[in-house]
């Protein structure tokens, strides 16, 4: 067994950083990833900006799966807890990609545990390549069995739309926007905040509010773990995504201005850390 003890127990010394940034960087390094000085600065700046803007307390889980190895990609930036990759997932420099048939990521935490509610929940996904085909696949989501009154997800709908379902598969809890499959890229922040339901999309060219409406609360918060690249509880192979993803977040509800600022901060983080450019 060629296994480095320092990788298990150590991690490089990280000084002069925000404690949250330091903890995350140390965890990633302990998993065997190399974190450059520029990446450390970018992570630190991202977290400090979220804290300075009073958004950090809204954020419950953040995943930056850019490191090319599963152990590092599985680490949550907020708590340093680890999720679990299952099946066929490619770990590339800058993103992860499901194989569309068996691969997904289990955050091992439920919307209920994260204190997401029927009136306060947000899901974010950074997508660098849309899933192939036109079938419905999930970017990030949770559902209790097949109960469509107990789900929370951001998904690529069959055909040419994206949808945010907050505790309801339709009616007031779900909002969707027409976006061609090839254009389902960039940073999507979907949020339910008070009576507002919206989806915004940030591309290099700017940010757009795809849908912004109001509606009554409906449904129940799921108690099943939140998955990425598959909706938990759905089972089978119908909802696996083969898209490429560079960032995920689960948080409490955000206002429109918070979502816009958060997506810009995510863009800067991901682009600086990867050297890639958002579509």
């Amino acid at each position, binding site marked *: *067994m*060629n*296994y*480095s003890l320092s*990788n*298990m127990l150590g991690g490089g010394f990280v000084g002069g950083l925000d404690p949250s940034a330091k903890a995350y960087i140390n965890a990633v390094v302990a*998993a*065997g*990833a*190399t974190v450059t000085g520029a990446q450390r600065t970018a992570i630190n700046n991202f977290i400090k900006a979220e804290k300075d803007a009073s958004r950090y307390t809204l954020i419950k889980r953040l995943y930056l799966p850019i*490191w*090319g*190895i*599963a*152990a*590092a990609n*599985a680490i949550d930036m907020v708590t340093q*807890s*680890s*999720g*679990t*990759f*299952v*099946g*066929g*997932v*490619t*770990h590339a420099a800058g993103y992860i990609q499901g*194989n569309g*048939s*068996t691969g997904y990521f289990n955050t091992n935490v439920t919307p209920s545990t994260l204190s997401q509610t029927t009136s306060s929940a947000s899901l974010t996904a950074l997508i660098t390549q849309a899933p192939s085909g036109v079938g419905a696949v999930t970017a990030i989501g949770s559902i209790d069995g097949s109960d469509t009154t107990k789900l929370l997800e951001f998904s690529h709908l069959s055909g040419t739309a994206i949808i945010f379902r907050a505790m309801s598969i339709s009616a007031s809890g779900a909002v969707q926007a027409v976006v061609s499959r090839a254009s389902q890229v960039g940073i999507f922040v979907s949020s339910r905040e008070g009576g507002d339901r919206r989806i915004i999309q940030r591309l290099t060219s700017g940010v757009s509010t795809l849908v912004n409406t109001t509606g009554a609360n409906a449904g129940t918060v799921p108690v099943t773990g939140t998955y990425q690249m598959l909706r938990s509880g759905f*089972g*089978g*192979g*119908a909802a696996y995504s083969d898209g490429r993803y560079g960032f995920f977040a689960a948080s409490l509800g955000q206002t429109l201005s918070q979502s816009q600022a958060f997506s810009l901060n995510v863009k800067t983080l991901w682009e600086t850390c990867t050297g890639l450019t958002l579509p």
Partner: protein
Amino acid sequence: MIGFVTTPEISVLVTQAISDAQTSRGLPIFWLLVGVLICSGNHAGMHFIPADDEILSTPLRGNPVLTPRDFPEFNTIIDSLGGLDARIDIPATDIIP
């Protein structure tokens, strides 16, 4: 899809062995193979464990990069499934309920 077809009982044991390989080293469970129920076709009722060459070469940890094949438990687990040559190719539609 390439992988192993096995009984639900062995499938659970395989997943547990992969889990144990991580927890026994003080690591979180960050990577698993999980058997999926085969719903139709010649192997309906059995479990399918995805295990193509790419999956078995997943970079798990870094510096240096370790894949599942680098863990000493790998051969034991694969042997319990009949060896790598026991893998078969099944249609993805077989596991869709």
